[in-house]
């Protein structure tokens, strides 16, 4: 046995050395990804969005993007070229996103990654994509890391999460001045910037309660707030946790002013999930579902026409927004459609009118949308709260 394993090892080493040398010599490390210039008559776009697993609901963004692309193609496409979307399900797992984005870029040769969903998933790939000069547009996240200067190929389009917090903070300062406040926040790159935004506008909050998404029982958090006599509760939570907390509040006979973050109230079933929703505020950068805002009606019609069977909800609207921005950049390119030309044109966009309001990119600043407002739940639907718009940029 001894001899065999030595023989084994020796053979192995020889084989590997022989194979590895030519192979690694032949392939030089290439920084920029292939497919820099669009040559055919199709511009292929890539997306990763969870269609399975607990985060599957927000993956519906895929259908909004599909609908927008179909509407562009119906109008004749961009510069005589059709758009095509390849969307993969990453299950909200960063490891999957890493693999699938390699597939998109190196196998499918997509021109840009557009409207991918999630903070941790996008965090896994944004640096690599930026290094490979692949544009990454309008990801479904407002995490501050994507807004850092120097990321030439990264174009976030949501208001940064800090803005979300500032919107709440400014509103509370104005309308609930002097009242005791509390924040329940998800203890990660989503909840913490919101908390930070709230504090930067409000000065301080009286109680801060972190949680993790796997937590299902929020009794003690709610009891704590109730016994401390907190009058205003801000929730930097995802949809499920937000619903659990609000339901818990109702069951404990506790009725403070409640303000939810945008990500927690976009889904269609919220009014049946939370019986006590009336009066609750929610930050938003999109018009409320079902509103008569012209952008929303255009989107809703587009969904009905090009993505039948998929509801025109907030998640789909995220995809629609990604489509709008991509189209605006592509449309302005004169000459060959290259990634650098695309990025250069995106950086000239000023006050682009989108479903999420005005979007601006400059060579120095890729913040995109800066502005938010508040909705309030009334009688089973959301109304825009007048005088709640927050227009200050959260960027330094």
């Amino acid at each position, binding site marked *: 046995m001894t001899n065999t394993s030595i023989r084994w090892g020796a053979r192995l080493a020889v084989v590997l050395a022989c194979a590895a040398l*030519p192979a690694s010599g*032949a392939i030089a*490390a290439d920084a920029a990804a292939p497919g820099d210039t669009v040559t055919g008559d199709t511009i292929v776009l890539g997306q990763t969005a969870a269609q399975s697993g607990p985060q599957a609901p927000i993956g519906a963004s895929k259908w909004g993007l599909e609908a927008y692309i179909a509407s562009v193609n119906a109008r004749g496409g961009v510069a005589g070229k059709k758009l095509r979307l390849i969307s993969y399900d990453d299950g909200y*797992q*960063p490891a999957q996103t890493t693999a699938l984005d390699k597939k998109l870029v*190196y196998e499918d040769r997509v021109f840009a990654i557009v409207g991918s969903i999630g903070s941790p998933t996008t965090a*896994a790939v944004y640096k690599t994509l930026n290094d490979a000069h692949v544009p990454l547009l309008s990801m479904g996240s407002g995490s501050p890391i994507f807004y850092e200067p120097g990321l030439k190929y990264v174009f976030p389009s949501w208001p940064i999460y800090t803005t979300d917090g500032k919107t709440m903070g400014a509103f509370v300062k104005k309308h609930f001045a002097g009242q005791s406040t509390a924040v329940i926040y998800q203890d990660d*790159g989503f909840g913490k910037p919101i908390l930070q935004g709230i504090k930067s506008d409000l000065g301080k909050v009286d109680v801060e309660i972190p949680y993790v998404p796997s937590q299902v029982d929020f009794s003690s958090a709610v009891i704590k707030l109730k016994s401390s006599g907190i009058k205003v509760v801000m929730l930097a939570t995802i949809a499920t946790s937000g619903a659990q907390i609000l339901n818990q509040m109702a069951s404990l006979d506790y009725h403070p002013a409640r303000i939810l973050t945008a990500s927690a109230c976009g889904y269609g079933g919220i009014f049946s999930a939370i019986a006590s929703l009336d009066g609750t505020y929610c930050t938003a950068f999109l018009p409320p579902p079902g509103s008569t805002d012209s952008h929303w009606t255009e989107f809703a019609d587009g969904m009905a026409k090009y993505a039948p069977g998929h509801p025109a909800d907030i998640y789909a609207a995220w995809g629609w927004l990604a489509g709008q921005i991509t189209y605006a950049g592509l449309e302005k390119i004169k000459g060959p459609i290259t990634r650098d030309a695309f990025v250069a044109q995106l950086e000239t966009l000023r006050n682009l009118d989108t479903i999420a309001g005005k979007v601006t990119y400059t060579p120095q600043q890729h913040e995109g949308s800066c502005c938010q407002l508040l909705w309030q739940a009334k009688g089973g639907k959301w109304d825009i709260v007048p005088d709640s718009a927050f227009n200050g940029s959260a960027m330094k």
Partner: protein
Amino acid sequence: MQRHTIAISLIVLCALLPLVLQLIGERQVYWLFVVSEFFVFAIVAISLDLLMGRSGQISLGHSGFVALGAYAAAILNEQFGADLAIGMLAGGCLAGIASLILGFPATRLRGHYLGIVTLGFGIAVDQIALKWDSLTGGDQGVHLHKAVLLGLDVGTPVRMYYVALVALLVTVLLVWNLTGTRVGRAFAAIKDSEVAAAAMGVPIARTKVLAFICSAFLAGAAGAIYAFLAGFVAPEDFGIDSSLLFFAMVVIGGMGSIPGAIGGAIVVDAVKNAAATVSGLSLTILGGMIVLVVLFFPGGLKAWLRPRRAATGLVHEPDDAAIPQDA
């Protein structure tokens, strides 16, 4: 003899894969990544098999060890530019230390307690990685610098592929050798009969902890390679789900066999990728496969890969290395 021929051909095939891909076209980046990732999974599967298949102890939190290894390597690399070799060593050791803390009370317990304690360990690693964001970057993870192995730049997909391949081969050899010597036999002995093993002079608790440490070390080292391969480490990648995938690899592979574990890794990886488009499909298939394997094909893939001896339940069969061939 024939088995050796097959094994050598497979290795040659793996070693030549980058060239083949090169000839087909410049398509290697994605496929090399996928295969490299599979190599890393196979290492973890072998490490878990060493624990479950050989020493009869269960771990439902094995991705916790992988996570520790990955984070150790990633953080050392991000903050001090540490080499892949150092990352593997540090990752393996950190996982080993964790297994020591975990395994010590666990070995005094009945088998199922260990399952629950390791399950909790997997969850805790996740939670702590998420919480301790000054070190781990929280949910936004750690980005690594370019991979360097012993001063050699291995940052390209091809080179990283060879790193993963060699790591897998080395793991196979190490585990193969280990199971054919005193410690490996002691693992099997405590799995088969603790009382008899003790009577033969095998210290039960110490041997169980040793099996745990070996397994965790390999899983941690694999995690370090994974970190460099992906260039990014985040808590979401190491949840219960991925622990269960490793678990499925070992069970479907048949437990107690290296080719079985590798085969199990292939099957699970294939199912996971093929069934990804339908929510819940891969869980259904893998769960169903586990139940069917246990009920009707107790030898798993192992029995199928080695038809010459009848399978005798979910039990260890000695590999070639364990059978004397010196004479």
